[in-house]
């Protein structure tokens, strides 16, 4: 198959497409032509991913109970929150990121521990300088024992803006094209069906029915509450490699 690399020295625009049509057809990127493109410097790429991984020891949360006049225990709900630092955010607070909770690409607000009615839920968030974990715990009929969980966060740089003035530049230290959009200094995220780092998808990853819920993550992992009565089975996703 013919592949064409075109560089426009005046605009700095560089693109690679999968046919021998005149380059003028790809000067501007429109919806229908996207499927012909291998690369176009007007597009916004993602990559140069930073990886933050941390194991957090979530401490024991002891239930609160007292004896009732009928001789049985009565429970009082206890609840609280804690925030943990997972690592530095060397990019910025508005970077894209993907979270893997203890090996699963679970949704925010995910449950990491449950004993009876007592639960522990977490979400990862970014600040301008840190990757942090927010924990909400609630005890009722059981104490939540200490647990260690591992979190992996892929922080993705938005390669949206052009820089420099070179349409194409090759030197011993690297290659750049399209005013810096294509640069060997970056490590772009690419599709990978074999052993992907994580998955992307345009679909829902959870459903609720009958009071319960079912999660089918983009990586195909599945779990549900015993009260779920729906038929959600998840949807296809695409693996990518960092």
């Amino acid at each position: 198959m013919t592949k064409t690399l075109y560089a426009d020295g005046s605009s700095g625009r560089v693109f690679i497409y999968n046919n021998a049509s005149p380059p003028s057809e790809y000067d501007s990127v429109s919806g229908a032509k996207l499927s012909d493109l291998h690369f176009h410097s007007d597009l916004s790429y993602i990559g140069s991913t930073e990886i933050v991984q941390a194991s957090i020891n979530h401490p024991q949360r002891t239930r609160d109970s007292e004896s009732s006049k009928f001789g049985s225990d009565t429970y009082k709900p206890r609840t609280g929150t804690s925030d943990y630092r997972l690592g530095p955010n060397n990019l910025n607070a508005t970077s894209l990121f993907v979270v893997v909770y203890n090996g699963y690409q679970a949704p925010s607000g995910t449950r990491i521990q449950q004993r009876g009615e007592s639960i522990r839920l977490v979400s990862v968030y970014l600040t301008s300088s840190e990757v942090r974990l927010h924990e909400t715990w609630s005890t009722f009929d059981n104490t939540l024992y200490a647990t260690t969980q591992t979190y992996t966060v892929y922080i993705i740089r938005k390669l949206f803006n052009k820089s420099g003035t070179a349409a194409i530049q090759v030197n011993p230290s690297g290659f750049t094209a399209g005013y810096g959009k294509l640069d060997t200094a970056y490590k772009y995220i690419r599709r990978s069906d074999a052993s992907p780092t994580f998955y992307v998808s345009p679909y829902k990853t959870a459903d609720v029915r009958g009071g319960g819920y079912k999660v089918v993550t983009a990586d195909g992992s599945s779990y549900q509450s015993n009260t779920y009565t729906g038929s959600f089975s998840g949807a296809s996703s695409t693996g990518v490699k960092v």
Partner: protein
Amino acid sequence: MSSQSNGVVFDTDTPMPHIVGVINKYVAHTFPDTGGDVKVRGFLTGAGNCREYDCRYERVCGYERVCSYERVCEYDSFFDREVCTTERICDRVYQCDRERICGFVDIDGYDQSAKTVVYAKEHVERYTLGSVESGTNPDFLLVYLTANRTKAGSQNARGTFKTAIPNGRRISGTGSTLLESAYRVGGSTWLTRIVSVYLVGNTVKAEFRHSNRYYDGEYTENTISCFGAADFSFMNDDISSRWGIDFEVYVGKFTT
């Protein structure tokens, strides 16, 4: 294209993801209160639990010596005048009266307890967050949420519904996000609320979905009420929650 330090950087045989559109939109959504009731049960406690200050009138009867002075006059013919004297005259009289008698007395009370029930409901509402150019046919979304729960649904016996969404923090919202949940004794989830962001053609939608099964609570709030039924209306559960969410959606596509 590869580099010594980064390995393969770009390969025309490997599709690369890129962002074809960024959509920002704020949505406020209220999950409904599904309605419910408070059920009360009670039984007589028997005497000894409650006392009442009681007054009554009693008829009190008895003999009483009743005396009075009477002026007794007689005509004295010798002096031709009337002579009067005062005499004390007494008698025994049977007499009755009503007396008010007050004091504390034991009475029956009511040992009452109450529970809440919440009616089952499935609820879904969808919002359009935005679209990308026709013909784009995106392949994936990367979604970020900055959410605030401005009103938290709750149960009297359990407190507010549990959430791990930190107010005002930027979290991942790709796919679905578990907003709130509530559990029964034993651990069964009886209420769950989620928000999902997904693609329909070239349009990005946000779907707020709620599900709760009929919740039949445990009798709690044991109260001994001495004078009529206790008021348990404070136990009524308001399970409505309100969320305001800033959606930040990156619409992505793979190159060929």
